[in-house]
């Protein structure tokens, strides 16, 4: 009696909760799997990572990485709403991809050798270049990392910066005391409280940390660059068709910026394309969609819905946001940056 009561309860629970079973990872044809499902599964965060994945007052996701997810969903489905953001912690991101909980990892994930070779992943071309800097309190009076000899350096644990800092300090013969925190919130709190003399990290993260400080003027980002980290979008090994879509989505965003095509003027330009390449880009002449297994107006949809790379950057982390991060290395090649579109032929 007891058992039947609980059994029926368990059944009710199970039935009500289990949706269609997640499709197992397959060799090839991943784009088709995603298209059949009708929505893209992309990584979010378990909390927030300033500027890249945050939640607004209404519980909606926003940030640079989230916009990239939206752009990819738009490329595949024509609308940014065909997207499910799955909250995923740092530790969980690779297993989540391996087990099929998400289709892509867009979570400021550095392209490293061990990740590329051992985890069964492949990375897209870098969509963001993250320089690692050191930020310290002004009252220490340091102008370079070497002035912080013997100080406490705080970092995010489990990230590339932990290694980069260790390498840099050893190579330059600077002694320091490392202190690692799992979450950005705790790392920031430790800096504000003076537990650390400096924090090392990804430029955008440092800028966000500074903006949020009780006294932003008390902190300074030092000029030394510890290293660069190219951030890539990761998909499973063997899903080459899907990786193609990811790579060309990034490329189209950059190309649109290079050609000055924005969300506001894309209709105008589509009506009178200035060059054959733009004509192809916006789907006026055929070719851009079919080769990827998408519709010909996918690039137009992406630009129309999301804007170009520069627009996305500005509204999430750049001048139009609270973090006011300069473009720096993330500018186009012809404006002093490292980013460039591939050739659209």
């Amino acid at each position, binding site marked *: *009696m*007891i*058992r039947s*009561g*609980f059994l*029926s*309860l*368990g059944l*009710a*629970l*199970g039935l*009500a*909760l*289990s*949706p269609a*079973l*997640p*499709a*197992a990872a397959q060799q090839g044809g991943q784009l088709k799997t995603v298209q059949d499902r009708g929505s893209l599964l992309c990584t979010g*965060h*378990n*909390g*927030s*990572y*300033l*500027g890249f994945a*945050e*939640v*607004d*007052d*209404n*519980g*909606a*996701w926003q940030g640079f990485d989230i916009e990239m997810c939206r752009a990819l969903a738009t490329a595949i489905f024509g609308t940014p709403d065909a997207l*499910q*953001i*799955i*909250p995923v*912690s740092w*530790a*969980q991101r690779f*297993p*989540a991809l*391996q*087990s*099929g*909980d998400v289709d892509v990892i867009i979570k400021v994930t550095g392209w490293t050798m061990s990740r590329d070779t051992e985890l069964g992943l492949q990375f897209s071309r870098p969509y963001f270049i993250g320089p690692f800097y050191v930020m310290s309190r002004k009252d220490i009076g340091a102008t370079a990392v070497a002035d912080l000899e013997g100080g406490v350096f705080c970092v995010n644990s489990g990230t590339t910066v932990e290694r980069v800092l260790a390498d840099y300090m050893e190579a330059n013969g600077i002694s320091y005391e490392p202190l690692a925190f799992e*979450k*950005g*919130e705790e790392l*920031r*709190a430790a800096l504000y409280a003076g537990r650390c003399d400096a924090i090392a990290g990804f430029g955008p993260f440092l800028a*966000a940390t500074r*903006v*949020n*400080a*009780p006294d932003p003027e008390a902190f300074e980002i030092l000029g030394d660059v510890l290293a660069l980290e190219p951030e890539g979008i990761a998909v499973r090994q063997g899903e080459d068709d899907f990786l193609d879509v990811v790579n060309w989505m990034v490329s189209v965003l950059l190309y649109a910026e290079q050609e000055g095509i924005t969300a506001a003027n894309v209709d105008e330009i589509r009506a009178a394309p200035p060059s054959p390449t733009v004509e192809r880009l916006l789907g006026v002449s055929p070719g851009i969609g079919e080769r990827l297994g998408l519709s010909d107006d996918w690039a137009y949809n992406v630009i129309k819905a999301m804007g170009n790379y520069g627009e996305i950057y500005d509204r999430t982390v750049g001048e139009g*946001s*609270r*973090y006011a991060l300069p473009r720096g290395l993330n500018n186009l090649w012809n404006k002093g940056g490292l980013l460039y579109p591939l050739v659209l032929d």
Partner: protein
Amino acid sequence: MDIAAPPKESLAAWAHRRLFSTWFDRIVTLVFGAGVAWVLWQVLGWAFLGAVWSAPNSDACAGASGACWAVIEARGRLILFGLYPAEEHWRSALACLAVMLTMGLSCWPLFWHVKRLAALWVAGFGLFLVLMRGGVAGLAPVTAEQWGGLSLTLFIFCGVVVAGMPMAVGLALARRSKLPVVRGCAGGLIDVVRSLPLLTLLFTAAVVVPLMVPGWLQGDKLVRVVLAYALFFACYQAEILRAGLQSVHDGQGEAAAALGLSPAQRVFLIELPQAFRNTLPSTINQVVITFKETSIVTIIGFFEVMASGNAALGSGDWGRAFIEVYVFLGLVYFVFVFGLSRYGAWLEARMRRGQRH
């Protein structure tokens, strides 16, 4: 002969006896009393007198001496409802109420029958799921990834206790089995699970199981995690129940056998009800611990109330008001946990009264 009732103690006399009767008492009372008053005054000043109640962002609180409660005004809905779509928050709130009502009713002795409890929880969970999932009765569907905040915390908590209790009964009985293999397996499972941190089990359920189990068996991640957590709860609860079963006098089982009850009837009608009653305080304690530890699921990407709290302070506008958010979270947990532990104390007192008759 009537014995006169002792004269009623006056308040002053009572205070004197309990506070000032010896020198030691006097010193303790004065020192600790002053300390408590000072702490209370500080808290009052921070939480009320110097607090900022409304502001567009945490910059506006920079000059204030007290708490920046404006963050709760702006981000409170995010903390309570997580990623649930804003226009549907009322559903999440109603679902919370439904579960809280179900919890409240099952604390009421009137419902302490297996059938009534089962019916109550089926109804409660059914209502919760309909409200949260939608897709019927004109409600827009909301996927489980968007569930969050308090309703997710309550769902996980209730799911764990409701699924864990029968597991606990099964494990406790298996550990008392006369068959050595059954007994050994149950004992081994209980000891192993109890030695592991909860987090490793949840992580396994969330990210390892999909690699080890064929796709058709995987089910939803939330279900897997609730079941893994329920197993953890069950292993602790099974040990509590085992102690309860041991405390039931052998004579009772023998009497039941003499009355012609089958072994199953003996266990389910005679021994288990008494075991449950005898171990109520420890059971409530275990339930309280379970509630507090639901916050661990944030590490596997569930947006329960702790994660949504972190998201609430993780924005350019509100990054400075983290203490206020954590205090608010502490209060939310405190309300539930304190309620549960007071209920436990009440049950204990009620039982003691029952024993005296």
